[in-house]
């Protein structure tokens, strides 16, 4: 079902959603000492939305899987213990103007959170969130979404997809929840044809990203399966500081720790916190033995998990090509370049 919505209509819609008490998350401008950046934020008015500009600096991960989330509270009284659910249930939320790479990530992580055991800590927020994406027109040199099965205008994970056109947007309602949203706020939408004058920038952006990286994911996967031991890992490992910034910035990295946070002798909270395979502590045994004892093996794990381990179990890859790990790395580690090298090595071997 496709509609169109004008610029002023979208602003009015966002303000109406906010007024109804629903949380709205959208890219907003943040002023820095030098320059500015766009950041997904909970916004208080449509005025705050910044739907175009540079690639959004953070991902949507913090909104579905907060960096630290309470699992339950405990109280001890002498020998007895009582447990109660942590306060703060997931609030209904609408994400507006999200990039394709960020919403695709949600669907990719869903699979991990839903195999065998259903992780309601993830799905509680996930299901309460309606996702309205906006076809991307701002790719930079670090973007490679088209190389990993996504693309600036890929709808994967969207309930509604917006595409820029003159004076407004096309709105494609793609899921039941997207259709329900469009009919609930029907006064702002008009019926439209599916490709009524889309902004040509969308197509140009796709073409630009396609020139950033072209690889054969299947060949890379089989190269990785055969090359757990390879000198390349040493080259990559030497650059890496093991800081984990790449994993925290990444929309698909989902590793976590579980820790108790006492608030006194008798009571406290058990929390789930972001963690990363890039630190030595992640795998160290109680005996002191560490099966992943150097940075080479840790950076290998990150690459393997994304391009070999996840694909073997769930299909696709654990990466949406958003380029954030490339932008944040202080060591100059560049996943886009790593993939180029792996692709070349895979080709040379076959």
């Amino acid at each position, binding site marked *: 079902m496709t509609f169109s919505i004008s610029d002023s209509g979208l602003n009015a819609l966002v303000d109406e959603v906010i007024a109804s008490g629903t949380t709205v998350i959208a890219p907003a401008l943040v002023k820095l000492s030098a320059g500015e950046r766009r950041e997904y934020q909970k916004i208080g008015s449509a005025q705050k939305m910044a739907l175009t500009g540079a690639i959004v600096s953070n991902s949507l991960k913090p909104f579905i899987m907060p960096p630290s989330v309470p*699992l*339950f509270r*405990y109280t*001890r009284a002498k*020998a*007895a*213990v009582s*447990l109660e*659910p942590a306060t703060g249930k997931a609030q209904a939320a609408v994400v507006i103007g999200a990039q394709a790479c960020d919403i695709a990530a949600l669907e990719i992580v869903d699979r*991990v*959170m839903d*195999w*065998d*055991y*259903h*992780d*309601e*800590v993830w799905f509680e927020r996930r299901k309460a969130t309606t996702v309205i994406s906006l076809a991307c027109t701002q790719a930079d040199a670090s973007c490679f979404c088209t190389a990993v099965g996504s693309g600036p205008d890929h709808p994967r994970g969207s309930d509604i997809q917006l595409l820029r056109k003159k004076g407004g947007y096309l709105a494609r309602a793609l899921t039941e929840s997207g259709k329900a949203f469009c009919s609930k706020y029907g006064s702002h939408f008009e019926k439209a044809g599916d490709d009524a004058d889309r902004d040509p920038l969308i197509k140009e952006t796709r073409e630009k990203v396609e020139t950033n990286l072209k690889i054969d994911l299947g060949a890379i996967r089989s190269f990785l399966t055969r090359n*757990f031991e390879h000198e390349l890992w040493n080259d990559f490992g030497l650059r890496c500081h093991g800081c984990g910034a790449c994993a925290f910035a990444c929309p698909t990295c*989902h*590793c*976590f*720790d*579980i*820790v*108790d946070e*006492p608030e006194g*002798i008798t009571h*406290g909270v*058990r929390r*789930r916190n972001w*963690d990363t*395979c890039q630190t030595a502590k*992640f*795998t*160290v*045994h*109680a*005996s002191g*033995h560490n*099966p*992943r004892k150097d940075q080479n*093996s840790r950076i290998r*794990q990150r690459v*393997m*998990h994304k391009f*070999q*381990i996840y694909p*073997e*179990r769930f299909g696709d890859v654990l990466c949406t090509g958003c380029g954030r790990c490339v932008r944040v790395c202080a060591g100059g580690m560049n996943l886009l370049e790593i993939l180029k090298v792996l692709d070349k090595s895979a080709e040379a071997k076959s």
Partner: protein
Amino acid sequence: MSIYQPHLMRVDGIIDETPDTRTLRLVFKDPALAEKFDFKTGQFGEYSVFGAGECTFCIASPPTRKGYIECSFKKCGKATSGLRDLEVGDEMGFRGPYGNSFPVEQMEGGDIVFIAGGIGLAPVRSVIWNVLDRREKYQNVTIIYGARTTGDLVYKRELEEWSRRADVKLWQTVDPGGETCDWKGQVGFVPAIVEKAAPSAKNAHAVICGPPIMIKFTLPVLSKLGFSDDRVFTTLENRMKCGLGKCGRCNIGEVYVCKDGPVFTAAQLKNLPPEY
């Protein structure tokens, strides 16, 4: 209830095995759950002390003994120190059972050889009692157990009991220099004692658990004795947090140890990257 919320259990008994190793007997606080709870031998759980956190241990008691579970652990960090401070009657948390198990049914009708080192006897003990409680289903049972010193042997009362049974062949050993003057067992490292005991591989399975170095040197001995890699079972102890295939910590190659393990055959281990 969240998959991360433990069931409450009460400490029902404490046995100090060695100066740093302790066994806790635990019973479910909720009688309905106690009735319903079941597990398979080789599965593990996440044990909580509220305020100190969670840690991973195998269930050291056999599923053939109902109404309680036991864990044996070495004090080595935050959560294990917290567990160590518990007294009889205190409540703690348990999530589980998780992971796969030793295929004891598949082993029926033949011989079983148990090989363990140090605290590695904990998961093996669950299998041993499971087998001994259904003794008629198996042929020869051999147990080879070693520790650094006589003081480090765990489950001393059970070792005593097994040594007296006519239907169990028990070999106990301590590392050279670890013996006391009244020590009647063997002196030597586990792989050497396995070679000396030379259990028959015919229609037999082996279950082995202990420090990585012991496993590394025992596998070739078993191979020499004629045990094929798919009849030798062991259990891995990669660091874990969730036990549910979510947190990513126990991942080795394509395997999540918490979901696809912790029990693996020697043949499966040979196909894994050496990250355990």
